[in-house]
């Protein structure tokens, strides 16, 4: 990675590297807008974001970002078809109640979708479950079973399978090993489903994908 991408989290650096300069980007669950800000500064994108939390929305708007407060599943419905080149769902898929419907919306309003999520089949999680018999807790998944916002358990293998089933084309993928807030990490090439902490996918509508 070049210096230009070194200011934001490693997983966001990967996403940023996939975005074409000057494109139109929608970031679903954009938080305090780090990725959007980065993409606007470095890639001259036209960016917009949706975020649920008032405090975070306010931070974004104060920074000069175009962000609106609301639920991503609802707010995405209002955009016209192909309003964006890229629609990003970063580390949120595991919290979405109806992932297929949301991804369908993403690929209606955008040409391409980028989704990332923590890999629930990392060896350390498997080991925890096996040895302690308790729901795994890690730096990427720091929650107890009763207070986690993560309602979907996804692995890299599961997502690939899901993509094939619903007719998604996987254009790019990166299995990475990084800690949750780290600016450094590496691509995991060998046994990714066992060794990667996150998966990132660029997707488009494939054959048979309902539009």
């Amino acid at each position, binding site marked *: 990675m070049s210096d230009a991408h070194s200011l934001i989290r490693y997983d966001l650096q990967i996403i940023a590297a996939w975005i074409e300069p000057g494109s139109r980007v929608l970031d679903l669950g954009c938080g305090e807008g780090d990725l959007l800000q980065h993409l606007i500064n470095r890639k001259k994108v036209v960016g*917009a974001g949706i975020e649920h939390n*008032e405090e975070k*929305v*306010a931070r*974004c*708007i*104060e*920074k*000069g*970002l*175009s*962000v*609106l*407060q*609301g639920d991503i599943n609802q*707010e995405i419905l*209002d*955009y*016209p078809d192909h*309003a964006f080149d890229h629609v990003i769902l970063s580390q949120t898929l595991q919290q979405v109640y109806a992932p297929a419907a949301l991804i369908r919306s993403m690929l209606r309003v955008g040409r391409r979708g980028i989704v990332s999520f923590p890999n629930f089949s990392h060896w350390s999680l498997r080991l925890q479950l096996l040895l302690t018999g308790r729901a795994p807790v890690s730096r990427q998944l720091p929650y107890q079973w009763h207070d986690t916002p993560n309602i979907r358990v996804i692995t890299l293998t599961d997502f690939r399978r899901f993509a094939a089933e619903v007719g998604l084309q996987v254009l790019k993928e990166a299995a990475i090993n990084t800690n949750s807030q780290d600016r450094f990490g590496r691509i995991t090439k060998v046994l990714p489903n066992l060794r990667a902490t996150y998966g990132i996918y660029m997707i488009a509508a494939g054959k048979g994908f309902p539009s």
Partner: protein
Amino acid sequence: MSEYIEHSKDSVSVGLVEKKFFTFAAPPHEMVLESGARIGPLTLAYETYGSLAPDRQNAVLILHALSGDSHAAGVYTERDEKPGWWDCMVGPGKGIDTDRFFVICANIIGSCMGSTGPSSVNSATGRPYGLDFPVVTIGDMVAAQKALIDHLGIAQLLCVVGGSIGGMQVLEWCVRYPGMVYAAIPLATTMRHSALAIAFNEVARQSIMADPNWNHGDYYGGRKPELGLAVARMIGHITYLSDESMRLKFGRRLQDKSDFSFNFDADFQVESYLRYQGRKFVDRFDANSFLYITKAADYFDLGKQHGGGSAVQACSKARARFLVISFTSDWLYPTYQARHIVKALKKCGRDVSFCEIEAEWGHDAFLIPGERLKNLIHGFLQRVHDERRAQPHPL
């Protein structure tokens, strides 16, 4: 809206300001109103703060609500203790930074704060208009402001901003004169007045018209319908607050007594407060203006007027970037109405930011000093200012 200006006495200010007047539409070139009626000459009272940049790209137009005026910030004399109604937001280094922006605020037509309204003298008769004043709309108010902006030599406003009825004017500006508005901040407002809002306005109007002194609007020079106007203001005040803010501010506390009076004096603090607000309002506001402005708000329906019934069609005429803001406890223009604006703007591909500010103070929250609103407006203005500078040919 009500008055919170006492909150901001100690802060920095734009300092001494002056109310100016612009008169136009002299016969035979009267302004044609939406109703088809003609009126002229028309005068607008206005104030400006800060200075216009040589490229004339830093003008921000503030649009006031029902009982507001052109005096948004600063003081008239050194000993003036009452700064303008949005002094907490407008001034050096404030949310709308007068060190950077040329800020304009004009009194709406139909009002009684220096612009032509029902209490103004009709040049044709030499007497105050009264009910001979034609019914004006939000669109008419905006058309009059446009004449002022033309007069000031500003081809495009960097931003139009306003809350409540001022927010309606913001939306109207964006679709009526899309080329003249680069960015817009509608606050605590709606695209169309709800039945609830119309109902409160109607009760308030009935209260004025039921006052024998009202005399079908012909009371200038005689006794004014003070009781009717005071009750109208009391009704308004209830809608500007919220269940929560009234509970916090008054609860069931008694006013200057420890037990009930067992008569119909003001026992509760909330009664005493409303009576005081009503009395105070009568001294500065004209009852007929109250009728005209509330009627304009009730008629407001952006989709009907500009989109053949479709809010999306109407919004598609706008070219501005938007920051829409609502407040959680505002029950006069609840958040769902702000969301309708956001939805319509998104559907036609406009750039829109939206924030629902957590606030317990009801509809009036937009007038109360607060870091959240100040920072949102500050950040948005800076962004659109920079974006516009970066474009050689705006729009």
